[in-house]
């Protein structure tokens, strides 16, 4: 009885929050369309990004979204759509999402707290922690913690890194300037990471990614 009413109350409460923060008049009535239904769209996202948003090892690593900063998610979806971030699959996904849907999805993933999958080489974790917390002054690499926070939870448009999939972090840092900030004219906040990603060696990237992959 109590469980039943809770189950009913929870989605309603979530919807109420979502609608009150991001509701737009043009959305009313659109919920009947399959592509506009939040639950169906969440299931779509989680088919690839994991049922708890924990990420997934496909042929390509599919990043963790659980606990991600909503502003970062919204920025990235816009970047995919505007081809500033190169990813044909996600460009297609982002193109189909209304601003209302993006806000609702981002708010949902923000509140997920899946356990990290882990998977990075354990013997690199200690080195990774040191680089993350202190940087590499001799290579002009600032401490990651300075922007991403001591627990790697991120803030606003600065992404959470804690619990991110090892091969995903490695790929992103390795290909930063080839994947992000593309297309020239538009301002893209990813530029801030370009020198740092450039100054890291493959071994240092692996160490940082290993450390983050286990971070709750």
């Amino acid at each position, binding site marked *: 009885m109590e469980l039943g009413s809770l189950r009913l109350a929870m989605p309603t409460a979530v919807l109420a929050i979502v609608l009150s923060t991001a509701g737009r008049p043009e959305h009313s009535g659109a919920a009947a369309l*399959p*592509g506009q239904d939040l639950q*169906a*769209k969440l*299931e*779509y996202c989680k*088919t*690839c990004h994991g*049922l708890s948003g924990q990420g*997934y*090892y*496909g*042929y*390509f690593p*599919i990043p963790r979204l659980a606990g991600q900063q909503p502003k970062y998610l919204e920025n990235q979806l816009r970047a995919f759509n505007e081809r500033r971030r190169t990813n*044909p*699959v996600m460009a*297609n*996904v982002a*193109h*189909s*999402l209304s601003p209302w849907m993006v806000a609702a999805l981002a708010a949902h993933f923000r509140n997920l707290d899946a356990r990290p999958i882990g998977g990075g080489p354990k013997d690199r974790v200690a080195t990774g922690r040191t680089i993350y917390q202190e940087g590499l002054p001799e290579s002009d690499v600032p401490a990651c913690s300075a922007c991403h926070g001591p627990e790697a939870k991120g803030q606003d448009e600065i992404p959470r890194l804690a619990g991110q999939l090892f091969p995903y972090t490695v790929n992103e840092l390795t290909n930063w300037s080839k994947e992000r900030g593309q297309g020239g004219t538009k301002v893209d906040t990813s530029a801030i990471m370009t020198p740092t990603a450039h100054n890291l060696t493959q071994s240092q990237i692996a160490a940082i990614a290993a450390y983050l992959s286990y971070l709750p």
Partner: protein
Amino acid sequence: MKSITSKLAMLAIFFSAGGPVSAGETIPIRNCTWCHGTSGQGFTTAPRLAGQRHQYIINELMDFSRHRRDNPLSKQYMWDAAANLNPRAARDFAMYFSSLPTRAANDGDQELAAAGKKIYELGIPESNIVSCLVCHGPNAEGVRQIPRLGGLSYFYLKKRLQQWGEGYHAAAEPMPRVARTLSANEIDALASYLSFVK
């Protein structure tokens, strides 16, 4: 004569490179090839095993023996076949078949292949259909426990997708939820496209 020699030579390379796998000695390969074809290329309803990912083959054998893969033909043939399989034998079977060269079934509808390719690569976000490529690879080659789909037969691919939609093999997440989003036409297109992929 020449072709016989070269085949024998290939077999010799095979058995020596395969290490513990020497077909017919430690594991009864003929028990599989009876249905799956002498070179593991599949036959009517039994899918191609040649070139399949070895971890996937092991996982499926376990799913048959634990009755998690409960599709009608699996139940009819593979439950018994996998019932008394020990992990060592499962691994050896998997190593053997995964190392055979794969071919394409080419039995789909050529006219649907282009539409299938588009769904395979990009999905259809408006209908909440995910991209297959992200997990199964750009060439449908699979990786680790994720199966190769390229070159499997149209009928097998179609049946599997249909049966996930009907509730069979529910343990194989995320495929049941993927299949539920696909229409009959979309399944036709995907199965057609994949049957031609080498």
